């Protein structure tokens, strides 16, 4: 990997971790949404270091463009109730879940950190619209159609669930 790629990776790694920490620790949901936005944009930059140009664009379009906007829209819709007060009680189980998560993450990440494989040379169209598009439309055509049906069902289901039935 070139030194420019290393610099981009380190920068995006730091920003993605900071964004994730802001997301899970912010008391106000809008700040959490902005942290999620920072996390997503920096992950899109990290995808560029992995030669996944089309997925970086899709990440920006779908996550930053649709999912974060949906979160912000729901925060606006709910208003002051979007902020939940501090958690009372159940200290033991919360501490336990946090400790177990940190232990597992430390074990996995320290054992994986020095695992190495040669990067090798990628072909010219690796990760571009042409390469990934050919892979999707030749090898994964049926899953691609199924995912479009899934998104359609999700839209109809979201409307059916969120629609008010009381009045």
């Amino acid at each position, binding site marked *: 990997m070139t030194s420019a790629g290393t610099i981009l990776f380190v920068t995006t790694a730091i920003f993605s971790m900071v964004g994730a920490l802001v997301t899970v620790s912010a008391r106000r949901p809008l700040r*959490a949404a902005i942290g999620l936005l920072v996390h997503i944009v920096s992950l899109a930059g990290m995808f560029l270091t992995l030669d996944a140009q089309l997925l970086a664009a899709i990440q920006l379009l779908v996550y930053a463009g649709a999912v974060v906007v949906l979160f912000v829209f729901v925060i606006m819709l709910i208003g002051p109730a979007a902020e939940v007060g501090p958690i009372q009680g159940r200290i033991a189980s919360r501490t336990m879940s946090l400790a177990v998560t940190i232990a597992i993450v430390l074990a996995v990440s320290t054992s994986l950190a020095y695992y190495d494989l040669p990067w090798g040379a990628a072909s010219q169209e690796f990760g571009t619209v042409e390469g990934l598009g050919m892979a999707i439309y030749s090898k994964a055509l049926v899953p691609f159609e199924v995912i479009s049906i899934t998104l359609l069902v999700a839209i109809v289901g979201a409307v059916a669930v969120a629609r008010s039935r009381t009045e």
Partner: protein
Amino acid sequence: MGVGTYLALAAVLFGIGAAGFLTRRNMLIQLMSIELMLNSVNVVLLAFNRVHSANHEGQVFAFFVIAVAAAEAAVGLAILVAYYRIKKTIDTDDARLLKY
């Protein structure tokens, strides 16, 4: 800067998302934590696909993960809005409608 660095970073990001999901009681932030976990899986898929770059299998998988995450966010937020209509709060400690 090997593939292991990407895997370790993905593990850390997944852990942050899991810790947020387990310790927070705000349903909005729990949904955001699920998005963090799904994103970290994409990093692993793309890193391994870059190593074995003869095909695009990992990127195709990441593409489908992104699509499913978008559908999950839409349905999850719809459930949140419906829950807020009933309980007037989004604290998941108060979610016990199906308990008894």
